[in-house]
């Protein structure tokens, strides 16, 4: 994606700090710019400050120092209600955000605070249920959905409000391959609409394959910010944040030890498959 040199970031965090009332410093001197249309991952150990960081974006946490600007406006004085129209957060545990009596009501409620006509609310509800393949559960209680379906509903109830910034906390947790595929399609669709998407994830393989930019956090600080392939391939950074190298990186390090050449260009599953395919064909025998 081409970015104009003078483009102003959609989100600007300037020297953000946050100290909990008990004295724990959850965020320390965070400086971060995020541009419109970006897909960005936040990774780090449990307790590194990832969730605190995203909570500052819709006002759930007010920084104890520094300023946050969204669309060039300081959000310090903006209410959670105002901010939640721009920033939608989908939490890790869907049951922390679902409370209505039926799936339909959940979406309906979410739309009600947007000053829409009754007809428009119903229209958008129907459309959302269809898009998220939840139509068949319209009258069912959210409590009687499976883990995967409830995660879908939680996402639907936020995305139907059409916020410009979407934040997902551990979206792939407990999901099987089919559900992860649904999620990938979902974020691809939202990106086509120029939405800015932030994902907190522990899923290294997922991040490596699908997220272009990653920031690494440890002890309330950002210690790296760059292309996911480079960040997750850096053994020093991985060690600092107690993550593990993606399998592809582990594999080519092992291949390098075997003395195999020209594997430095491998950066995805497909690259690795191509490399091995050529290797086998050149040896003209099966391995």
């Amino acid at each position: 994606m081409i970015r104009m040199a003078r483009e102003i970031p959609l989100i600007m965090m300037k020297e953000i700090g946050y100290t909990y009332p008990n004295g724990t410093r959850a965020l320390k001197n965070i400086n971060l710019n995020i541009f419109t249309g970006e897909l960005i991952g936040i990774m780090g150990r449990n307790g590194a400050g990832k969730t605190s960081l995203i909570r500052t974006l819709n006002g759930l946490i007010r920084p104890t120092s520094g300023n946050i600007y969204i669309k060039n406006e300081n959000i310090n004085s903006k209410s959670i209600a105002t901010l939640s129209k721009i920033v939608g957060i989908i939490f890790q545990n869907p049951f922390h955000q679902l409370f209505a009596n039926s799936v339909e009501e959940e979406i309906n409620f979410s739309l009600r605070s947007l000053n829409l006509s009754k007809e428009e609310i119903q229209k958008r509800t129907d459309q959302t249920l269809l898009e998220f393949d939840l139509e068949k559960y319209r009258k069912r209680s959210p409590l009687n959905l499976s883990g995967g379906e409830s995660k879908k509903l939680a996402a639907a109830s936020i995305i139907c409000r059409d916020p410009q910034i979407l934040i997902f906390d551990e979206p792939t947790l407990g999901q099987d391959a089919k559900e992860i595929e649904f999620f990938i399609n979902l974020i691809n669709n939202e990106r086509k609409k120029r939405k800015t998407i932030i994902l907190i994830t522990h899923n290294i393989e997922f991040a490596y394959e699908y997220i272009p930019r990653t920031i690494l956090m440890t002890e309330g600080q950002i210690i790296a910010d760059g292309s996911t392939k480079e960040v997750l391939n850096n053994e020093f950074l991985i060690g600092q944040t107690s993550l593990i190298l993606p399998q592809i990186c582990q594999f080519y390090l092992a291949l390098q030890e075997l003395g195999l050449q020209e594997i430095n260009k491998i950066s995805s599953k497909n690259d690795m498959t191509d490399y091995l395919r050529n290797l086998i064909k050149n040896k003209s025998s099966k391995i």
Partner: protein
Amino acid sequence: MDLVRFESFYYRYKGNEEYALNNINLKIEGNDSKFILLAGETGSGKTSLIRCMNGLIPQFYAGFYRGKVEIQGKNTIETSIADLSTEVGIVFQNPENQLITMNVEHEIAFGLENLGVSPKEILSRIKQTASLTEIEDILDKAPFELSGGEQQRVAIASILVLEPKILILDEPTALLDPYMANKIINLLQEIRREKNITILISEHRLDLILPFTEQIILMKKGIIVEHDSCEKVINGDNFQRLRLNKPVIFSIFNQLKKENLYNKNIPISISEAIKTLKF
């Protein structure tokens, strides 16, 4: 005697028309310890199967059942959950839900106190379990003060101290970062070596768990579609068809196999992959 035995077992939750478990026949032998992976897409019945093993289904979860489940020869319908808990230890996904006391040491002692074990024996077992699970330093802390990884270790310790014959874990690493998840998996290896017990684990992170797995139980829509050695299941059609989070290394070699460029068993770890490539 079999450790676990399901005979034509059916179960559906109250209010649901579909069977969560559909004609389950399963045998886990008790003569030597094993590391078994329970795998399947979400909603395939893994958690329901686990709930049957300590009698939670049908004693606690209302529903309709048919057939028989026996643990160490004890029928799970007639035996109390308390009695079954000395045979089967279950650690659920969210440790917060099973930690109930105000300090870790009490947490671990709780089960033993209820079983009427002598205080001297309780102390000795706590000491041994705490050392194995590396929680000696946090015995006086409150469970809510602990990190996710510590909570998970305490939950495992509180079950392990009851000395079950089989330890069952339902997605134990789901909420943990990769480092902590690895640590828990290594702990399970350690427990197996020390205690010589069978471990059954339901887990979505197959890349972490497959290198240690000896048997796989594969579930789909409430049915056990395959139960065999890890190697056989991984290289079979059922595993191929299910939408599981297969390790990257599996996908690569599976693709080469499809193209007829590779004809050995599909490797499930980097070291196995490297071995197959030494030519």
